[in-house]
């Protein structure tokens, strides 16, 4: 039986030979070359590419660190110190990786807030958003597991506090926690499994990122106006327009990353983690890394352990529900005067909760933590559903090109162009 190969548009005989058998070059060209992309992205649209860069950077530095690291409670701390002291450029690998988690979260938070502001979670991009939320959840797990590995004081006590959350579950809580620990306290078996999982999860993230990007390429990107491209005039090919813009953005991002890595590598970390884990000595204050502080504040905003833990997980669940909690038909906050206020207060609220999370829960901080928690959930559960109902949105522009080009092209010209293409 004669098989025919699919025709390929490529001229190079090698590329053509491969492409006819597995059209990977055609796919790359379609998805990253000519892929029609709204022409009106601002620089906030760089952060997806930056997050992708950080995932790769974390996996690469992480693999090299794992070659020198020893996941044993007696040896882990010293092995990390040897990486920074004796391994060639080990100090650089380690600080790239440890500060990389902060950079990864910073980028993802901006990416997430951008999606919230411009309504990127709305129909037809709900599934795309859900994959994003799953990635975020996996990132939190990975970061927590990774923070345990240096086996410093904050590693050990952070792991103890977080795993103790599960004891809040009624009836099965204790058993689950013992099972997670592999014993009756955080100890060597815990470190062993945390290392195994910390090595595994980034690859799970990579798989979900693949789904995230796949879903993105089915619906196409949202844009600052939140209206779908209507004609070819509204879009530009991804390459070279957004490849050039992403490369420039990446370079600026790398400058910030490099300043932290080379000049203030300990700024975001806790000095306590340069002290070897001691199960008999609790640090004065146990505090998570900055990217978890808002959730830590929500956890401590209620005096009941189970309620606190439920609220904290609920805070992440809110993200998953967002596409259905927001009832407004208009995507971009540009045309939603009320939502815009609510959104910026939400941003401020998460910063406030972050601040509360870094303080001892006493005095005014308890009240601020509670107010912040109430607004956090109020934003999702009350404001989002209600706004769609009573908010008077501003008129949407007829098309992206009309909004971008202003007076240059009249509507009729755009319509004529669109007819040509069609």
């Amino acid at each position, binding site marked *: 039986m004669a098989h025919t190969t699919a025709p390929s548009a490529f001229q190079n005989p090698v590329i053509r030979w491969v492409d006819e058998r597995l059209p990977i070059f055609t796919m790359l060209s379609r998805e990253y070359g000519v892929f029609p992309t709204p022409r009106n992205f601002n620089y906030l649209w760089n952060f997806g590419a930056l997050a992708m860069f950080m995932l790769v950077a974390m996996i690469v530095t992480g693999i090299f660190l794992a070659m020198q690291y020893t996941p044993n409670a007696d040896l882990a701390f010293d092995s990390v110190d040897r990486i920074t002291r004796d391994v060639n450029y080990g100090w650089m690998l380690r600080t790239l990786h440890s500060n990389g988690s902060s950079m990864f979260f910073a980028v993802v938070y901006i990416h997430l807030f951008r999606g919230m502001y411009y309504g990127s979670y709305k129909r037809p991009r709900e599934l795309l958003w859900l994959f994003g939320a799953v990635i975020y959840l996996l990132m939190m797990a990975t970061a927590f597991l990774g923070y345990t590995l240096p086996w410093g004081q904050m590693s050990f006590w952070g792991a103890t506090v977080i795993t103790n959350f599960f004891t809040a579950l009624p009836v099965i809580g204790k058993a689950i926690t013992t099972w997670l620990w592999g014993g009756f306290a955080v100890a060597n078996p815990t470190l062993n499994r945390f290392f195994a999982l910390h090595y595994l999860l980034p690859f799970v993230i990579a798989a979900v990122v693949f789904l995230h990007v796949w879903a993105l390429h089915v619906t196409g990107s949202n844009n600052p106006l939140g209206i779908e491209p209507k004609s070819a005039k509204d879009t530009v090919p991804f390459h070279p327009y957004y490849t050039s813009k992403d490369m*420039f953005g990446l*370079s*600026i991002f790398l400058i910030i990353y490099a300043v932290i890595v080379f000049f203030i590598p300990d700024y975001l970390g806790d000095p306590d983690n340069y002290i070897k884990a001691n199960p008999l000595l609790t640090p004065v204050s146990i505090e998570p890394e900055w990217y978890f502080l808002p959730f830590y504040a929500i956890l401590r905003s209620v005096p009941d352990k189970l309620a606190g833990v439920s609220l904290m997980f609920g805070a992440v669940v809110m993200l998953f529900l967002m596409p259905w909690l927001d009832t407004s038909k208009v995507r971009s906050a540009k045309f939603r005067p009320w939502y815009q206020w609510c959104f910026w207060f939400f941003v*401020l609220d998460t910063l406030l909760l972050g601040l509360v999370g870094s303080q001892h829960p006493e005095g005014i901080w308890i009240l601020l933590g509670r107010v912040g928690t109430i607004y956090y959930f109020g934003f999702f559960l009350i404001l989002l559903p209600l706004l769609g109902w009573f908010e008077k949105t501003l008129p949407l522009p007829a098309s992206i090109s009309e909004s971008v*080009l202003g007076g240059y092209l009249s509507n009729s010209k755009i319509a004529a162009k669109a007819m040509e293409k069609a």
Partner: protein
Amino acid sequence: MLSLRALLVGAAIAVAAASSASAQEMPAPAKQDWSFNGAFGTYDRAAAQRGFQIYREVCSACHAMSLLAYHDLSGIGYNEAEIKAIAASVQVPDEPNDQGEIVDRPGRPSDRFKAPFANEKAAQAANNGALPKDLSLIVRGRPYGPDYVYALLTGFKDPPADVKMAKGMYYNMQFPGHQIAMPPPLTDDRVQYADGTKATLSQEAHDVVTFLSWASDPHLEDRHRIGVRVLIYLAGLSLVLYLVKRKVWSKLQH
């Protein structure tokens, strides 16, 4: 709408600034002028070597630095012969010999710094129950790093009349709770410097903190040197990429 955004962004920055200012609880120690401060900072070799002398003659009676090896001392300017001599001045247990006996031998440059006590229990027994900390990472492992260690070493005072001191404790201005089990380790002329520098308390504290800072972060100079080059490279790259981006986008009608 622009003013609303400016207001909120301003408030956000204020929150962030407040958070970094109020995150610490101890009173901040006075800032000292360290040679390794700043983007171009390096370790003052002479001060670090004087600091090592203090560690060797004073601190090492109680404090281990078990993460450092003698050959690491090349990082503060000791040459091979000096390092061999320093290492050989201690006796360390050798590998079991053919008869299975462990005999002591002179230290080698590849040996880790010899600890003053066999184990933690022995260290506590000799120190009134308190455990002298390992100093390998003492500077990185404390808030305010070198400024804190300096303030601690120079912060011993007679206790105020209203403070009741626990048995065997010493009053220290910087130590959390003000009662520390370590007796004042440094005084004027505690050591005789080989290079003729006058050994005042503040000079000694300054020197030993320079040494301990190097021990905590021995690659600081590499980090700074490479960092400056990386930033220069990235600045040039960013400029080129910006021009490329502009050129590409100029084809598009605006």
